[in-house]
Each structure stands twice: as C-alpha cells, then as structure tokens.
C-alpha cells in the first residue's frame, strides 16, 4: 500500500476513534455501551478532549499524505464516513464500540512506543 493510502487509512481510524469517544460522551450512547455505569463529568471531559485530540491527529495524518487542499477535503469526507461507521456500530453492535476503542488505544500506544524505540535506534 502506498504511503498516502496508509496515512488516509490511519486518518480514518483516528476519526472513527474520535467520534466513538464523542458518542460515548453522550448519555444515551454511554448507557448503550456501559449500561448502569455512571457517566460522570470528569469521564465526559476526558472523552471529549480525547475525541478532539483524535480528530486533530486525524487531520495531521491526512496532511502528511497529500497536498493541503486535498488533505483537508479528504479529512472532511473521512469525518463523514466515521460518523456513519460509529452510528452503525451503535445501532448494531454497541459492545464492539467498546472493544474497538480499547484495541485501537492499545495499537496506538504500541505505535508510539515503536516509533520512540525506532527513533532512539536511528538517532
């Protein structure tokens, strides 16, 4: 897969993650996924800021793979796709949202660690 395609895919995954957290920050959907666990204000704040971070990183990934105008356009379209994906997950398999969120976080952490290690070894 080409570099640009990889960046776009990563941008999509980050966007899905971002909107998943945004959805979880809404009481209705939190209840769908976590049942009777309370959605406290701190939890909501974390979810919301995390979501913004993910969406911002998604934009950066887009920009890494394309010229600025096309990257922003692509990012907007990926956001639209991510909203639909998250809505479908919530409608059909809310539990998956939870699993995907955890798995993606793990993968993300893994990538960061790998990146840091790689830089250390190269530098």
């Amino acid at each position, binding site marked *: 897969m080409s570099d640009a395609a990889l960046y776009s895919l990563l941008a999509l995954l980050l966007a899905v993650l971002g*909107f998943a957290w945004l*959805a979880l920050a809404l009481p209705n959907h939190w209840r769908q996924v976590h049942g009777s666990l309370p959605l406290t204000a701190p939890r909501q704040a974390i979810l919301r800021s995390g979501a913004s971070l993910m969406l911002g990183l998604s934009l950066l990934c887009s920009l890494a793979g394309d*010229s600025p105008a096309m990257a922003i356009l692509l990012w907007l*379209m*990926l956001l639209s796709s991510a*909203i639909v994906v998250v809505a479908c997950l919530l409608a059909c398999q809310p539990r998956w949202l939870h699993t995907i969120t955890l798995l993606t976080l793990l993968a993300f952490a893994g990538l960061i660690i790998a990146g840091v290690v790689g830089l250390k070894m190269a530098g």
Partner: protein
Amino acid sequence: MGELHTWAGVLLGVLLFAVFWTGSLSVFDKEIDRWMMPSTRLHWDDSMQRPSLDRDIRPLLEQRAANAPVWTIILPLERTPFLTLTYGSEESRKSSRDLFHPITLEPLAKPLTLGASGFIYPFHHNLTLRYKNIGAWLVGIAGMAMLCLLVSGVVIHRKLFSEFFTLRLHRAFGRSTLDVHNVAGVALLPFHLLITLSGLIVAFAIYYPDAPQHTYREQVQSGVSAERAFLGEALGRIRLRAAKEPGELAPLEPMVAKAEQHWGPGSVYLLRVNNPKDANGNVLLRRTSHSSVTKDIDNFRFANVSGEVMGRFQASAMVNTWNFIAGLHYIQFRHDALRWLYFLGGLGGCVVIATGLFFWTQARRKKQQRHGHLGVSLLDALSIAGVCGVILATLAFLLANRCLPMQEQLFGLGRARVEILSFYALWLVASAHAVWRVMRDQRLGYLHAWREQCTAIALLAVLAVLANWLTTGDHLLATLRSGNGPVAGTDLCLLAAAALALLAAHKLRRRVPQEETLEVAHV
C-alpha cells in the same frame, strides 16, 4: 395550506434526487463511458509515448477536416485513453468527433452513444432542457432551496446535534427512516454545503449574466459586450477574427515544447487550432491539473503561421479562487480515494433526500386521512416515480446501450437518441406503474409499488452486467484479472445496487401489515 407545502416539498425533493443521482454517477462518468463504449476500453498512463502532433496527428486532420474552422486535439489521458479529434464545420454549429487508438492511431469504432459524460452529466446540471436555460434554472432553484434547507435545518434542529449518532434501525420503519435521514444528513453536512454552493458558483454565467455590466461600462460605451470583455479578461476566452487570407500552419510540436518549458513536460493535453488555414489563425494550448484541486485555465496562444507566442493567459488569484471552488465540484484531479468518497457522499445525499421524501409523505398521510386518500396517493406515486423511476431509467439507458444493435440509425433515429428515449420511456413506465398501484389500493398500494420497482431495479442491474458480458466478453472475473478498473467497477457497482435493491424489497415485503394477508384470506 399544508397541501401546498407538501406538494412543493415533494416536487423539489424529486428534482433534487435526480440532480444528486446523476451527479453521483457523473463523478465516475468517464469510467461509465468505458463501460458504455467498449471500443474505448484501452489503457494509457503517463509513461507511454504520446503520438507525434506533426507526423501522426496532422495528416489525420488534413485528411478529415482540411477546411474546418476549428480543430481540437485532445491527447490521451489516463481516464480517457484515446486520442480525440474534433472538427467544427462551416455549415452547422455542430462538430464531429473521431476517436483514435492512442498508440497505433487506428480510428476506433464509433461509439454511437452519448455515454455518461454526454447524457448523464449534462442531465445533472441542466436536465438536458437547453431551451432558454430552463433546465439549468430548475437545477439552480433546487440547489438554492437545498442550501436554504441545510442552513435553516441546522438552526431549527440544533438540539439534534446532541443525539446525532442515534440510528434506531430496529424500531418502527418510520422512526428508522427519520434516524437514517438525520444521521446521514448531519454526517454529510459539510460535503453537501460545499457541493451545493460550489455547483451554483460554477454556473454564475447562467444565474447572473448581467454581473459585468456596471463594472465594464467603459467597454460597453465603446461598443464591446461587457460579458465578452469579462470572459476575455478573467478567463482568457478571446475570439480572434480570421483574416480571410490563406496561411500555412507551422509545426505544432515546437509550440508544445515552448509551452512545456513553462508548464512542465507532458503537461499539455489540449490544442485548439482556430482557423487552421488562415493567416490570422491561432493555436490555443491548455494543460492538465491532475495534482491540484484548482482547475487550471491558463493558456498559451501561438500564431498559426509564425509559430511564435501571441499571448499567455494566467488566471489571477481571485479567478483561481473561483477555479478552486469549481475544482472542488468537478473533481477532475487525480485522487482515487476522494473520487470514491465523493461518489458515496453523493449517494448518501440521495439517501437523505429519499428518506426525507418518504418521511415527508408518511407524515402528511396521517394528517390528510380525513380528506381522502387521492392527494396522498398521488404524492406517493410522485415520490416513487422520482426515486425508483430515475434509477430504473438509468438502468434502461445502460441496457439499451448494450442491447441495441450497433447501427448508426435505428427506427429512423440516431442510435444515441434511441438510448435516451429508452431512459425516458422506462421513467414513464415506472411512473405509470406507481400511479396504477396507488390508485388500485389507496391504502397500501404505495408499498407494493416501492417493492416491485426495487425488484425491477435489481433485475435490470443484473441484466446490465450480463449484457456487458454477452456483448463484449469482458465479464467481471476477466476485468478484475486484467485490472480494467472502469469496467470492473461499473459491473461491481451494478451488482451492489442489485443487492441493495433486493434487500430493500425484502424489508418492504415485511412491512405490509398483517391486515392485508387477513383480507386475502377472507376472499
């Protein structure tokens, strides 16, 4: 009062659906063209050697159109992998076009069709109603209405943004239809705003024709048309008069080389030779803009006889802003991911409009029950004709393209015209079917009509794929193996459409209430 509102909404919705449907297809118009014109299923990429303009192409032009007032040469490109030569004629404004193999320069078999780029795309922006631009005005009104709906919709439904991930698919059909409408509508809001506004801005010449009048009043006072002056200054479109004296056309390759010194190698894709045999003729060169959103309208103009640069047009920053907006709408730049996302976004818009129509008529049905069912039934018929009808019409267009014999004239009409008649004919048949169904059963007829037309869509889509296989031999497995993207993509999308239509028909079957089966049992 409410009736008026309802009818206006449905009429506008039907028009918008047609515009969004044909617009979505137009994103892949060149790919659908490959499907509809089998003789053009060729391959071209940037690494290949372009045909020589003077050695190969000039003789072809001399042979076919030595006395034409205009020659247009479009060099092969990835999405249009053939050489196109267009020649105007002295007598009529119509020009004829010939296609040639990009390497051997053999003339390709005449396509005998307008294709997606010749019918579906024009339908999208002017409904092919060219008289006094009536079609373009209708599309413009629909577009403006869409903008108003989007902006006012956001303001009115602000609270929705707190619930905009909600998709209750397993609830009552009406509820899930509304949810799909809301989620898709919100998700695609930026895209729809961009596309609708850019679509209107692109066509400013139709909607604000008198804009240059006051600014160009000096030119107007000295007898020049303001519009002509504006187009010349802002867009580089100038028309030079012929000297009516003979002149020999200089070699074209050096002209291209000179332009490509500034533009980069291999960037020239279009040459237009105005008045080729005239002393005052000129050659216009345009370049590709694959890697920028901004549609490039810069040009070089060379004198016929001397081959020297007569002028170079470079669009100003302001005009390039317009070109950027236009480029956003036309999506002619190279970016496969964005192209697919635009296609899906456009189809998403169709879903938003169709669910909106369905929900709108459902809500009105409850209100108008005491006034009798006729009005509501006709609204249903209109919705069905507007949504399923235009899809069926498109499939008829594709099927006719494959099934009609390859003769220039059929039943006394051009073959391309017969294909277009098939489009409208099936639309008419679908409308008649919808009206018949709702009249026959004013309570549930509309459900039967939706279901039957969805089944018809599935059937015709599969038939189209089969027709492609039988008439060209390029069946899906072959095209996938040989990497023929356009044809494989079209076939796959047809099959996907058939699957979705069958799913819809199946879901609709389950919606027919129990009472109906009980009625049948009693009879």
